[in-house]
């Protein structure tokens, strides 16, 4: 009986995932203008500070153990929120990259492809970073390096700048011709 209930539950879960995917698909951004203003604020320095081992050590040595545990829990919770923001931004930039890689201009298309790849890498890192941070909440001794997420994010913003420069150039070319 339990196995039957589990299997029926599994079937319902698959149906739910299908509905979720269909709804997510209908929400696909088809106009780049839709992305404007959707980026969520991310302060990388604050994020680095939140996950810095030295900062943690400083707090540990200067705060009573009980207070430290509470503060550390809050810091990790905030860090997880930052990671989720970065992942959300990456998914928006992914849409921009997908639109750009369909461009007839090979350079814009190439920059779009790079943007897509970087955005996906951020989402991979964000997934593992969020898991590690959550694990650290349970096991405070676990060390987490934020560099993978933050450096990738910096790289991503660099790619967006490159797309901007390409745009300038294509406009100049259009004006010259």
């Amino acid at each position, binding site marked *: 009986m339990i196995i039957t209930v589990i299997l029926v539950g599994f*079937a319902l879960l*698959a149906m739910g995932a299908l509905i979720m995917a269909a709804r997510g698909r209908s929400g696909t951004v088809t106009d780049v203008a839709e992305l404007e203003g959707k980026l969520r604020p991310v302060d990388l320095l604050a994020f680095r500070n939140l996950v810095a081992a030295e900062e943690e050590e400083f707090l540990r040595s200067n705060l009573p153990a009980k207070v430290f545990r509470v503060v550390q829990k809050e810091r990790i919770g905030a860090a997880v929120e930052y990671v989720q923001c970065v992942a959300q931004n990456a998914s928006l930039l*992914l849409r921009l990259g*997908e639109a750009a890689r369909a*461009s007839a201009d090979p350079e814009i298309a190439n920059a779009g492809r790079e943007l*897509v790849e970087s955005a996906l890498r951020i989402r991979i890192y964000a997934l593992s970073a969020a898991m590690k941070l959550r694990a650290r909440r349970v096991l405070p001794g676990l060390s987490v390096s934020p560099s993978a997420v933050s450096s990738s994010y910096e790289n991503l*913003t660099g790619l*967006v700048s490159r797309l*901007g420069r390409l745009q300038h150039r*294509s406009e100049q070319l259009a004006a010259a011709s």
Partner: protein
Amino acid sequence: MEPHSLLWYYLWIAPHLLQIPLAIVIFKRKLHRDFPWFLTYTIYQILGNAVLLLLNHSPQISGKSYHVALDVDAILSIILRFAVIYEIFHVSLKPYESLQRVSSALGNTVLISLLLGALGVAVYGPVPQYTTGLISMSVATYRAGSMVQCGLLLFLFLFSYYFRISWRSFVFGIASGLAFYLSVQLAMSALLALSYIKSADAIDMAAYHCSVLIWLGYALARQRVPVAMKTVPNHQLESWNLELQRLLER
């Protein structure tokens, strides 16, 4: 041959008749280049069910022989569906190089877990007591097959949802039609292992009918082409750059 209602015949024959125009549309729109296994599965379903219908009405075929044919068909269908699922994974992840390693590592882990789970269900799960060994085997085969395949599609949906992968229209149509049918089949085969359900066949066939309609609808629908940016909108990117720089400098 057992007497059946008109609805039962409709539910058996109609989806397979609809698969004929589906195969033609796939071929005409050259979708078979990306989905050769789905076309093979479609053609197999048309021919296989035509043969089963003939066997069902042939006085020379005993009930036992007919059920052997049903089991063979079930196994071949499951094998072809695995090929279709592989095709769905391949087509939907092809444009994302950086995801291929992660998806294949995670996909293999999920597949192994599902196979072990299916083995566990086969060993410890309930076996229908109300019928013959052959039908029990059919129920167990469908249950194991749909469990693994449903799980793989569930994984693909969740994976795509997390990474915000853009699905092309037809591949999403194939995946959703298959997931719908497999989840109904899984639920029905799990319940059938406990007790006899009179309308189980009809529900299974109705679900398949819906899936074929989904496939046909998506095959006929215009393929979604990504909105190509001839130029990247300047004002947008600059404001994005400023916003990102401001955030980075904060």
